[in-house]
């Protein structure tokens, strides 16, 4: 049984309970009174980029629309500006819930695979943990070539003037493509991360089981 089918079985017909138990700050979802001030305060233009503004997501959770919520790209578009939290009359930690939803959808393998924010987050993590330092050149190239070689070249050409400007200003070193700078104690970093992974694995396993 996959992680998804296991939890779906456990919380059959009670998606709100699933969110409350599994999503960080999920127990706040029921406090929403659908005033709409979060959506109205959101700086991202969700009507072209997002499927569902926050208070619609919260209503969908209460309506049990599990598939639509967890596969949605909406929560991945949150820029953490905190406008919604500041203005929410119920003091609901909306930003945290958006990230909590994204994390949960990712954890059980429901998140949209090629959603740009999710893809970039994975890329960034791999990049930063590999040598202990972020290699910005490799990171941006990785993102450019996300949708294939042809698209990658197109993206690179479009950003050409910016890249040249950065090189001239000494903010980008093309030699970074070959190795790049590293942190001194790479072994130590990897050991530390291994320990953190283990702690997180145990915690999440307990949460999924509990």
């Amino acid at each position: 049984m996959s992680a998804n089918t296991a939890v779906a079985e456990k919380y059959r017909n009670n998606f709100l309970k699933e969110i409350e138990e599994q999503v960080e700050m999920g127990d706040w979802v029921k406090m929403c009174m659908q005033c709409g001030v979060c959506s109205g305060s959101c700086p991202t233009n969700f009507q072209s980029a997002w499927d569902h503004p926050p208070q619609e997501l919260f209503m969908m959770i209460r309506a049990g629309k599990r598939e639509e919520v967890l596969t949605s790209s909406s929560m991945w578009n949150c820029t953490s500006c905190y406008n919604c939290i500041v203005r929410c009359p119920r003091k609901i930690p909306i930003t945290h819930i958006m990230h909590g939803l994204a994390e949960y959808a990712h954890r059980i393998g429901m998140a949209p695979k090629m959603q740009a924010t999710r893809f970039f987050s994975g890329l960034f993590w791999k990049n930063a943990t590999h040598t202990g330092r972020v290699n910005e050149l490799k990171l941006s190239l990785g993102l450019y070539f996300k949708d294939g070689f042809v698209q990658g070249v197109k993206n690179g050409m479009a950003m050409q003037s910016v890249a040249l400007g950065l090189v001239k200003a000494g903010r980008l070193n093309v030699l970074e493509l070959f190795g790049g700078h590293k942190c001194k104690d790479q072994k130590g970093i990897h050991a530390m991360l291994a320990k953190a992974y283990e702690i997180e694995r145990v915690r999440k396993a307990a949460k999924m089981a509990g």
Partner: protein
Amino acid sequence: MTEHVATNETILVVGGGISGMTAALEAAETGKNVVLVEKNPALGGRTSQLYRYFPKLCHPTCGLEINLRRLKGNPRVRVLTLAEVSGIEGSTGNYTVSVKVKPRYVNENCTACGECERAVETMVDDPFNYNLGQHKAAFLPNAMAYPQRFVLDPSIIGTPDADKAKAACKYGAIDLDMKEETIEVKAGAVIWATGWQPYDAAKIQPYGYGRYKNVITSVEFERLSDIHGPTGGKILRPSDGKEAKNVAFIQCAGSRDENHLRHCSRICCMASLKQTHYVREKFPDGGKSTIYYIDIRAIDRFEDFYQKVQADPTVTFIKSKVAKVTEDENGNPVCHGVDTEGYKRYTTAHDLVVLAVGMEPSVKGINIPGHIASDSSGFIEADPANGAVFGAGCATNALDVNRAVQSATAAALRAIQVVNKVAKAEA
């Protein structure tokens, strides 16, 4: 006027608005002696500042007139205006209350002829009109003022204007030597009816009150609509005096908001529904109201009032808490948000935005002398620890006029029971 005899069979009522007047009269009409303390120069409170009441849309002068007639005909109520309670000592059946009385500089000889007002030149802000306009520094507080007697603003005392006022008075009513005094009043029970204040709209930062002239509060809108108000009853917007035909009402401005007031202020939905009538009445052609709301709470039995407004084609309802208000190049306030029925963004300009501000209890943040239990919003709660200090009206909850009167009558009955016990013990 501050000379009087009060005993521990007296009931002291603090606040001379609709609740305090009601409590004082109900108690006095059962034969009790009452001292009524009001901090403003005239009775009537916020009720007298309304243009009309809901649901019948009659003028508040009507209800006040009945109460003022009862008051004039009842020698058992002593009214102290410009007076504030500064301390309460003692316990049930035996309180000593300190009352600070500010000078009015006008005595009982005043006939309200208005000669002093014509003589004085200095203008001061008019709090009765929420400072939307100014009046002379010698003034009658409002058209219905009780006592019907002028007041001199303290700022002109010691200036030539004060002497001009004195010279103009034919009745010897102006006494420039009056001083602030503190008197002690004995009382068996105290009714605390200090009412409410509109929530400070400037604290709701995204709505721009204080930054944009054409964003006003619901209480200010009442004054704009009133014939005795600063615009003579014309709904003109503050920035340029243009007729405000397209008015937006933003509900829950402060209320039901953990960042501002936790409670539902209960009256604001009805107040805005009522105010859409003002827009239609003043602009029979082209008047337009838009109500932005979370959900309409037409309290009690007023659902039919709501349904009638819903059927009005000049009124639009948008289910959305407005996220922010900005101003366009013509000085029009612009509402931004998302209509939760269909999740559509809107950016809509209006002539005027009216914030339906919440009710904050007047006792909040003020040190009521003595121990008083209050709830998380600051409203007085009924608690045995309060002794014989009873809350009444909007000091106890967010209430409309009707419910405030009921609450005041209940408080009067509790106070009467206390002084009856005192009387029995002493007989």
